[in-house]
C-alpha cells in the first residue's frame, strides 16, 4: 500500500503521489492514521480521503493496481448523484453510501463539509466493520 508522503518501504505497493498540495503535517498524519485503520479491515484494497467538490484524492492508501484517481472521481460523482436522489425522495442528507458489485464493494462516508472517506474492497470485506471505521474517521475530521 502507499500513502502520500509516507510510502512504506518493502510494502511491495506502488507509490501514489498526492494529487495536489495536502493539508498540514499534523492533519495529514491524522488522515493517514485513519486510512491505516480502515486498511486493516479484511478484504480492503484501498482507502482514500477525497475532496467532495472536485473528486480529487487528498490522501490515499492503496494496494498496487488500484486506480486512485479514478476511484476518487467516480466515488465523488456517485455520491453526488445519490445525494441528489435522496434529497428528491425526502431522505435528507446522505451520510454513507455503499455500492455492492459482483467483483467488490465501494464504500463512501461523507465527512462534512467537503471531504469523503472512500474505500474499495473485495467481496470478503466485513462491511459493518469497514463502515464503523469510516464513519469514525469522518466524524473525527468533521469535529
Amino acid at each position, binding site marked *: 500500500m502507499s500513502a502520500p508522503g509516507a510510502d512504506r518501504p518493502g510494502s511491495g505497493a506502488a507509490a501514489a503521489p498526492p494529487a495536489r498540495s495536502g493539508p498540514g503535517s499534523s492533519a495529514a498524519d491524522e488522515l493517514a492514521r485513519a486510512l491505516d485503520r480502515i486498511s486493516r479491515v479484511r478484504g480492503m484494497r484501498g482507502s482514500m480521503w477525497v475532496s467532495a467538490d472536485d473528486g480529487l484524492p487528498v490522501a490515499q492508501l492503496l494496494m498496487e493496481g488500484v486506480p486512485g484517481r479514478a476511484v476518487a472521481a*467516480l466515488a465523488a460523482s456517485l455520491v453526488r448523484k445519490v445525494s441528489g436522489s435522496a434529497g*428528491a425522495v425526502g431522505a*435528507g442528507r446522505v*451520510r*454513507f*453510501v455503499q*455500492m455492492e*458489485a459482483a467483483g467488490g464493494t*465501494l464504500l463512501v462516508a461523507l465527512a462534512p463539509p467537503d471531504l469523503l472517506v472512500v474505500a474499495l474492497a473485495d467481496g470478503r470485506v466485513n462491511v459493518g466493520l469497514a463502515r464503523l471505521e469510516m464513519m469514525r474517521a469522518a466524524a473525527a475530521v468533521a469535529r
Partner: protein
Amino acid sequence: MADDVRSLTAALARDPSSLRYADLAESLRRRGQRDEALRVALHGLARHPRHADGHDVLARIYSDLGDLDRAQLAWGKVLELAPEHPGALKGVAFVRFRQGDARAAVEALERALAIDPSDEAAQRALESMRRDAPMADLPTAELPTAELPTPVAPVPAPPVPAAASPEAGAGSAGAARPSGAKARPAVFSGFDRATADILLLDERGLVLAGGLLAPNGADVSEVAAAGLAGVSGEAARTAQHLALGGWRTIVAEAESANLVVAPVGSGALLLVRRDRSMPVGLALRFAERARGTASTWLEGQGA
C-alpha cells in the same frame, strides 16, 4: 433550432445546475425529440423541484406524448408554485377542453386573460371556443391555438397483469392506497407501504409501478424516478471503470431514511425507502424480496 439545442446543451454542460434545462427541453420538444425532451426536463426538475417553468415544459411534453393525466398534474404543480402562471392556465384549459369540460376550459382561459389581457393566444382560443361551439356542448377537440401543446396519439399505459387489480387495494395487507398515491400496477401488494416507499422505474427514469410519497402525502414518484435513472448510469459507469462487474445494490444511509437501489432485469431499477429505525441489513433483505417480485412481474410483461 439545432444551434439552440447545441448552445443550450453546452451551457448546461458548463453549469449542470443551470435553469436553462427548461429551455433545452422546450427546444427539443419543438423539434419533436420528445423522449429526449422528457429526460432533460425530468433531470432538471430533480435538481429544481420547485421550478415552475420546468414543470410547465414537462406538462407540454406529456401533452405532446398524449399523456393528459400527467400533463394536468404537471400544470397543477405549476399553479401550486405560481398561481398566475399564464402557460399553466392555458395548459389546464387545453386539458379540460380535451376532457370535454368546456366550462372549466373557458374559466381557465378567462383567468389567463385576467392576468394578461394582451395574451393573443388565449384571446384567440377563447373566441374560437365561444364562436365554434356553444358552452353547453363544446366538442372534445383540440383547443384552437398554435401556442398550446399539440397532442399526438396517446401512449398506451403500462399493462396491468391479469392477476393484479388496480392499485386501490394494493397497500399493506390490502390497506387502502395512500391518498396522494397514483393508481399504478399493483406489483408490490403485500409489501409494507407498497405504494409509498417502493418504486420501480425504467432506464429512462419513467415510473413503472409502486410509488413514493413525500411526508406531506404528495406523490413524488416521477421526480424521484428521474433522479434515480442518473444513479443507475453512474453506478454502471463506476462498476465498469473499476472492473467490479455488474453492480447489485446501492445503499444510502441518510438523515431521515435509508435507501436501497437495485437493478431489476434489463434496465429497470428498484428503489426501496425504509425508515432509519429499520436496520440496514433488514432493509437490504426487504429490497431483495421486492426485487424478486418486480423481476417476476417484468418477466410477465415480456420486459
